[in-house]
């Protein structure tokens, strides 16, 4: 309304500075929101979901099992990730040579929220070496995610055919497994 007035001249912004100022404002706002989130303990309110898993993270998970699963669960894929591989190739034939031990052999597991994951190392974990319960039980482990596999087939019983996974699955190593008392 006061175009051309002295007041207007005083407020005329320079053409580059104005956008740099807006960029600076965005970063200041982002930092401020980060501080407020931390202060309001966002991590207690915005619960992590299983979908929050990404490469390089460690998650605490709870897996449901029966002791026969050590011989029943298997996956098939040609991919080897960080030295971890399935016991079978994509053509459903056993991998030759087979993965050297349980710490390198991927198997499919379901956590208590029914999310499927591929993991190695569960049965060699010190907490699993004693006698296992005869009934279905749960195991709590640290799950270190090393990557994701898109093309993989799963089998939950030796009598079943390998069934292609419908989605990408996280791949990782299970450690420090314990059976909760």
């Amino acid at each position, binding site marked *: 309304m006061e175009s051309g007035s002295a*007041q207007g001249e005083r407020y005329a912004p320079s053409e580059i500075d104005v956008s740099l100022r807006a960029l600076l404002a965005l970063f200041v706002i982002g930092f401020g*929101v980060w501080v407020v989130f931390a202060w309001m303990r966002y991590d207690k309110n915005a619960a992590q979901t299983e979908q929050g898993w990404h*490469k390089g993270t460690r998650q605490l998970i709870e897996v449901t099992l029966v002791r026969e699963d050590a011989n029943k669960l298997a996956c098939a894929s040609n991919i080897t990730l960080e030295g971890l591989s399935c016991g079978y190739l994509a053509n459903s034939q056993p991998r030759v040579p087979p993965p050297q031990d349980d710490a390198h052999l991927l198997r499919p597991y379901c956590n208590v929220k029914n999310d499927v994951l591929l993991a190695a190392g569960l049965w060699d974990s010190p907490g699993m070496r004693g006698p296992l319960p005869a009934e279905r039980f749960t195991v709590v482990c640290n799950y270190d995610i090393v990557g994701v596999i898109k093309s993989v087939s799963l089998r939950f019983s030796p009598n079943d055919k390998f069934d292609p996974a419908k989605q990408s699955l996280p791949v990782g190593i299970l450690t420090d497994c314990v059976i909760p008392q």
Partner: protein
Amino acid sequence: MTSTAVTAKFARAARSTWQRVTAAWASASLTERATTVLLGIMIVGGIVLRIRAVWHPPTFTFDEPFFVPNAHNYLLGIKDTNDHPPLFKLFMSVGILLFGYNSAGWRFPALCFGILSVVLAYWLGRAYFRTARAGLMAAAFVAADGFFISYSRVGLMDGILTSLLLWSMLAAISARTWRGVLVTALLVGIAVSVKWSGIFIVVPAVVTMLLVGRVRFWSVLIFAVVPVVQTGVWLLALRLSGEPTDLASLWRLVSGLVKHHVDMNLSTNPLNSSWYTWLIFYRPVVVKFSAHGVSKFYSSSVGNPVFWIAVDLFLIWSFIQLVARATAGGGGLRARLARMRDFLVGKPVGKPILLTLLGWAALLAPWTILRNKFSFTHYYLPSYGFALLMLGGLVAYSERKRPKTVLLFVALALVVAIYFAPVWGEFSIREQVANRRLIPPGWRP
């Protein structure tokens, strides 16, 4: 420039701003001071409403499932299957990297840009109307409007798009040479990489640069960088998701998405609303809704009725004035056009109002023509931003002659904002209490 010089520059700017604020306060009347206090409450309250418990609910709401898993896909290095350009999801993946794959992470970018919109409204209002008062009004109106508050609280792209479009216009109105035009074009390219409908900002941006900044006409050709920016963003996204990054693959992807969006005009949706109903918020979406027992939590995108009714009344009044000047008073076509022109360039309209109106119309027009069947109220958000800028300028102008009327208007807007705050900012309320605010059945989830 050394860091010492930059610090000194900021210190000088801060000191100068403080001196201007204190001088303006000292010279203001008691009524204007009261209005200023109410505007300040609107801004602070609006920002608090945006931030408070933004992570609630910790699950996907409304259209978040279309975007959040795809943002996460970029971190996993797998394909983005969403049908919009990638930048919004890349912003969201930054939030997920900072806070984890949770509701705080995926709503972080929308919240930051939502607060930035308040700051941009101040700068843009000041730049359009050449008075800080108009900027303050515009910032307070954006801050205390539920349409903007709700889209700051949800992992959706429309609030971010609006913020980037306001930023683009701020760059456009400040442009004086080709460098300013280039900055504007880069920002438009970034906005278009969030959502394609942002491209229509080019019309008001170019007109503003030519009329206000008086840049050379040829410099408008610099807008050719907009598709280059979009291509660059898209190639980066494809690289992150492990997809082919050659131009032929990108072309196939983009042309497939364009066809998909054109075909969507044949779809139906219960939340669908035509563009002309947006002006009266006939079908605003409750973008977040959750329940714990009898407690309900709403984040409705209905705007502050005081603001949108005022905008609509001004548009109707202006239209009547134009029609009256065209049809009454006699004379030939030239005389009638001259009378219409006098109205448009005189007070209270004038060039700044016409420019904000152009922004409003340019961002609304595509939905009246291109996709007028499968459209939703939130498409109006960028356009509505310019309507609030216009309102800020009008109210600041009116304050000089009728400060008490403006005080009453601002007070009424604040009271209405306080009344609607529970259904904008997800307060724990009973359904019947919410229904007293969301009165038309079309406003309820």
